[in-house]
C-alpha cells in the first residue's frame, strides 16, 4: 500500500524539532540499510552466502548488519563473517548434493568417504566431474560448524561425514528461496 505524499507531509507537520530530526535519522538509516541490502543481494560473492533463507531473513531484519557483511565478504574477512553468521558454534545451512537418480532417496548414508556438499548448485557443477549424469542439484539443510566455515567459503564445499536423513532433505515442492520482494522494495 502506498501512503499518499500529502498525508505523510501532513503528519510530519505535527512533529516538533526533536521528533522530526528522529524521523530524518530513521529515514537516513533505512536509506543506507536498503542501499547495503541491495549491494548484498546483487553481489555475486555475497549471494553465495545468502542462498539460504536464514541468512537472508536476518539481513533484511537488520539482525546482520548488511554494510559490515558486505565489506567482510569483499575483503574475505573470515573472523567477521564467522561472527555475523554463527551466533552459535553450529548452525543449519542449505547446501547442495548432486542427485544422480530421479527418485529422491529417503536418506544419504556414505560411511566410507565423506560426501561433498556444495554451497550452490553452480559451485557443484564446477567441482563435480560427471555433471552429465546429475539429474538435479538437491538442497539439503545440514548442521555446519563454525570451524568448517572457512573451508566452505573458500572451496565452496564441505566434506560432510554424517548421515543425511529425510528431515534434512528439502523436497522440491517445499519453498527454498526466501521471499524478499515485499520487504525490500521501498
Amino acid at each position: 500500500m502506498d501512503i499518499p505524499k500529502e498525508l505523510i507531509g501532513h503528519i510530519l507537520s505535527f512533529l516538533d524539532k526533536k521528533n522530526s530530526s528522529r524521523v530524518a535519522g530513521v529515514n537516513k538509516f533505512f536509506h543506507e540499510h536498503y542501499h547495503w541490502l541491495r549491494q548484498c543481494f546483487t553481489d555475486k560473492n555475497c549471494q553465495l552466502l545468502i542462498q539460504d533463507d536464514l541468512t537472508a531473513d536476518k539481513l533484511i531484519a537488520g539482525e546482520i548488519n548488511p554494510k559490515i557483511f558486505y565489506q567482510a565478504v569483499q575483503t574475505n574477512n573470515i573472523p567477521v563473517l564467522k561472527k555475523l553468521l554463527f551466533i552459535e558454534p553450529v548452525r543449519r545451512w542449505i547446501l547442495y548434493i548432486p542427485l544422480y537418480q530421479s527418485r529422491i532417496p529417503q536418506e544419504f548414508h556414505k560411511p566410507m568417504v565423506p560426501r561433498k556438499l556444495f554451497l550452490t548448485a553452480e559451485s557443484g557443477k564446477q567441482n563435480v566431474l560427471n555433471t552429465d549424469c546429475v539429474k538435479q542439484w538437491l538442497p539439503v539443510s545440514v548442521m555446519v560448524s563454525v570451524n568448517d566455515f572457512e573451508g566452505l567459503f573458500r572451496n565452496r564445499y564441505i566434506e560432510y561425514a554424517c548421515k543425511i536423513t529425510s528431515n534434512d532433505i528439502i523436497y522440491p515442492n517445499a519453498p527454498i528461496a526466501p521471499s524478499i520482494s515485499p520487504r525490500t522494495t521501498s
Partner: protein
Amino acid sequence: MKAKIENIINEIDKKISDADESNKSIPKSAQEHLIFFRSLLKDGLIREKPLPSIFKDAILYIENIKVQSVKGTFFSKARTITMRDQLGRSAYLSNHEAPSPLIIQSVGHRIMLNDPETLEFFKAIYGDLTRFYPTNGWNYTYPLEQGQVMNQVIGDWQNEMIPINPSPTYNAYQDFKRNYTLAGKKEEDDELITRSLQGFIEQTDYLNAQKETVLRWIQENGGQKLNRFITELLASGELTGHYSALAEADSLLNDWSIENGRMVFNYECCIYSYLNENSLLLKNTATGSIVESEGEDRSLPLLFICAKIELECVEQRVIPIVSYLNVSSFSPDLPRPDIMENNINNIIK
C-alpha cells in the same frame, strides 16, 4: 599312470557316494571339491591331455581352495587363506611356468571357472553344485541409461573415481600382485604388470594421447578401489532394504581385458553375510531365510554380484562406466531393487 588316475577317480566316486548316504560324514564344501576334482581328472583323461597338464590343473585347483586358517576368537575374525598359502610359497605356481588356461577359483562353497566350457563334465557337475543352493531367490539386471547403470551410489562412486594424482601412483599394483588378473593371467612383479598393461592398452582404440592417461588411471584406481561401489550399494540399503555393512565376502573374478576397443574390468563377488545397523551378523540358511548368527562356520552364499566396468576416455579424463550389473540373491527375504523402488514410489505418491 592312466590306470592310477582312474583309481583315484574311483576312490573319489566312492567318497562322494558315501557322502551322499550320510551327509554328515563329509562337509558339503569338501564334497564339491571332490566333484570338481573328479571332473578335472576325467576331463584330462578324455581329452588325452599329457599327464603333467592334468596334474597341473589338479594342483592349481588344490592351491586355490580356500581354507579357514585361524579360528575366529572374541578378538579376531576367522581368517581364510588359500591352500597355496597353507602349503607354503614353494608350491607349484611359484616356479613361473605359464599357468594353465583353465582358471579355477574355489571359494568356500562356490567354485568358479572363467570358462566353464573347457570342462567336459562341467554341466553335469553344475547340477550337483546348484543343489546346494536354495532356488527361491531372485536375479536382477540393472537397466542401462545411455549405456551405463546409474543411481546415486554409482554416480557418487564414478565422480570420486575420475580424478588421478598429478604424480603417478601405483596403488593398484598390490591388488594385481594379490588376485587381479590381466585376461586371466596374473603377474608377480611391478615391471611385468606395467609391461602387460602397456601391451593391453596399446591394442585399444583410445587416442594415442589418451593411452598414457588410461595406464596411469589403472595403475592408481584399477585395484580394489574399483569395487567400492558394492560396499556403498549395501550401505545405501539398495540390496538389503536397510543400511548394511559387508561382513564376509569374496571377490571371485577381478579381471582386466579388452572389449570393443576399451579396457574393461570384469568383476564377480559373492557376499556371504552382512551386518545390519545394530551390528548384528546376518546369514543365509539352507532354506533361504536370513537369520542372525554368531557362529564361526562359513555361511551359504547370500548375494552374487556380477559387474562389468568399462573405461571411457573423454579428452584427458578417464570415466569408469558400469555397463553391466547383475545381482542374484539366494534368499527371497532380500528385496529386489526394482520392486523396492516401486514400493517406495508408491509410498511417496
